[in-house]
């Protein structure tokens, strides 16, 4: 009788443990990778420097985004979910479940402070968390905050459905100022001290320009014509790359912000990233990662359905 009770108890514990802690394939520590976050059928593909798939995580919950937290953790969140999950990469085990409000649009990790931020498009807030998942601050911003970027002590947040962006103190989240930008803006980068903002364009009319702004004043320094719908930036080997998803066009700009190379790549790409001196571009419709180096596509990697986000872990060069 005692034996049966014990076996039953063990079974219960096992089942409960399985329920509570979804486990994924482990990712070896210190191995460089680029991860494609696919959202049409939620999954994450981890690809090493040689272009081989290290692991493919098929996600059971409707996650819509992910971001790396530190060197060995990944934060998974979903727009319609009321929790975000922090998963340790080296063990594949869930570290914790963070309660969030429904409507998460983006998450961003601040390397300097080791805090991370989650924007919410339903409540129009941004919330900061410690690396252990403890909520720190929350502020209300403009309509539908989404794209984020930290520079020095400033957190720049684009309000996607509003006509201004917010500049916050990255630690206290105190709003310092706002800059006027068009609606449906997306994509932020810092180039030569300038704040570069891309966007889709509001309503029917697509946007084809990147606005260069003074990061301190918000003053427009200039406009770059990069048709159509420039929304992603990456830089490697001293060149700035801009992705215009409306025409599947990848542009390379020189220091003078002139186009020195351009090529139509992939099908409806939303994101690019610099990895191992390559520019990697993710085709959303053709579910392919394109590895570009020296103006050539040197590799293509097939990934899951709807790659929307690229996450890069690289050791110090």
């Amino acid at each position, binding site marked *: 009788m005692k034996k049966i009770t014990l076996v039953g108890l063990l079974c219960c514990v096992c089942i409960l443990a399985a329920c509570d802690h979804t486990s994924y394939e482990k990712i070896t520590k210190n191995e460089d990778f680029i991860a494609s976050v696919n*959202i049409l059928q939620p999954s994450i593909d981890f690809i090493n420097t040689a272009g081989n798939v290290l692991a493919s995580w098929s996600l059971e919950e409707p996650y*819509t985004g992910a971001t790396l937290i530190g060197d060995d953790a990944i934060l998974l969140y979903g727009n319609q979910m009321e929790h975000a999950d922090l998963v340790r990469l080296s063990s594949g085990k869930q570290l914790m479940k963070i309660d969030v409000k429904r409507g998460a*649009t983006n998450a961003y990790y601040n390397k300097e402070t080791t805090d991370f931020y989650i924007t919410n*498009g339903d409540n129009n807030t941004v919330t900061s968390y410690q690396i252990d998942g403890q909520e720190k601050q929350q502020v209300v911003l403009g309509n*539908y905050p989404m794209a984020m970027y930290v520079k020095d002590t400033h957190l720049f947040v684009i309000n*996607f*459905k509003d006509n201004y962006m917010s500049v916050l103190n990255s630690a206290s989240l105190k709003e310092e100022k706002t800059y006027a930008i068009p609606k*449906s803006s*997306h994509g932020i980068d810092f180039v030569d001290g300038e704040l570069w903002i891309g966007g*889709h*364009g509001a*309503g*029917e*009319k*697509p946007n084809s320009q990147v606005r260069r702004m003074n990061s301190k004043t918000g003053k427009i320094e200039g406009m770059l014509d990069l048709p*159509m*719908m420039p929304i992603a930036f990456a830089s490697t080997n001293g060149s700035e790359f801009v992705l215009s*998803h*409306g*025409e*599947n066009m990848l542009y390379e700009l020189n220091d003078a912000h002139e186009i020195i190379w351009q090529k*139509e790549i*992939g*099908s*409806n790409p*939303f994101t690019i990233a610099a990895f191992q001196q390559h520019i990697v571009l993710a*085709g*959303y*419709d*053709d579910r392919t990662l394109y590895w570009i180096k020296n103006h050539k596509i040197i590799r293509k990697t097939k990934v899951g359905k*709807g790659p*929307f986000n690229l996450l890069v872990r690289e050791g110090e060069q």
Partner: protein
Amino acid sequence: MTKLSAKIWIFVLATMAVTILFMYSMTNYLYENLYVKDTEDSMIEVGSKLAQMYKGGKVTDGFVNDIDRYNMYSNSNVFAVRNPRELSACVPFDIDYDTLIGPEERQSLIKGEVLAKKGYESRFDRQVISVVIPLVDEQRLEGILYLYFPLEKITELASKDVVMMIVAALIFLILIGFVIFKAIALLLKPLKQLKAAAMDMAAGQYATRVDIKSKDEIGQLATTFNEMAQAIEDEDQRQKQFLENVSHELRTPISYIKGYSEAILSGIIKEEEQPEKLALIVREAARMEKLTNELMQLSRPAGPQGVLKLYPLPLSETIREVVVMLSQRATEAEISIQLHLDDEAVIMADELKMKQIMINLLENALRYSDEGTVIDVSSSIHGEEVVVQIVDHGIGIPSEDLPKVTERFYRVNKARSRADGGSGLGLSIVAQLVQAHDGRWTIDSELNLGTTITLYFPIVEEIE
């Protein structure tokens, strides 16, 4: 709603209304399935041909202009779309814009599938049939050809003149209702005549006939009605005749009895003549008794109990007994009765009734045979039947009277038979009793030569 005409009228009108509704839905169905499908197919064909002008790469201004130019001469509307916003290219983002195609449609189009839709399109603010042809190059949805055709439903078309249509339909229904009403009245006129005739019959006017010439069911009903009326009239006539006969038959003995008894009472008849007259009165009274007995017999052929007591009867024995009973009369009439009987003949019969049959027949034979003649009575077995034959050599029956001899009170020679004590009911009773024994009989006769009566009864098989 008791009138048949009203029921038929409502039924026909309802059927017409249902037919109109059915035609409406049928037209709608044909419209949906033929017109819509045909339009869709032709748009897919045209769209696919136009899409062949696209040679890959970006959708050029030239291509868009070519499509626009074609649109000017085309039946359906067609335009090229290359704006990624319209093609749901930004869909992972929360777009506050109503795109021309949705994200699922985009996925199908990337695979090169042609889309066909039918329904309300807010952009055109109307119901349309639309066809979307993808312009795909290297898995990139570079653009689409959007073809659409306004889907003017029949209801939409009709809604303009809906009042006129309803009024027209109502007028049509009223007119057709009136025509049907008149037609039904015309068709049912013979039924009314039949009804009136039946009521006349019920009131006792048996000579009533209907005059309907048509050959249809109502015509046949009228013919049958006339036949029935004729039968009722004949039967009525027979009843009257029967009553007349009964009263006539009873009146003669009653007037004898009344006349003589009155004469005796008033002393007109001398005392020495009285016994003779009293004997006459007794004879007439006996005749009346016999007559009433026979009338009762006719009304209840199976006797007071209502059923014949059937059991296997050796027929020869019965015949012999009857002949013995009548031998006195035969001797008086100087007529000999010769028997040729098969003793094997056994039938299922009621002995008393069987005797009655034989008595009636032999009495008749004796009554109408001349002195010195012979009556042959024979019985024999023929297959499954026992055949009894009575052959006399008397006065015979005229052939025109033969079919009527079984009628009640029918006499071939009225004066003679009444004088001989015949009631005119004997053969009627025979006919009834033979039938009650599952038998049949025939009469063959030749005037002045004699009469042959043949009876047939089912034989009883001997139990082994």
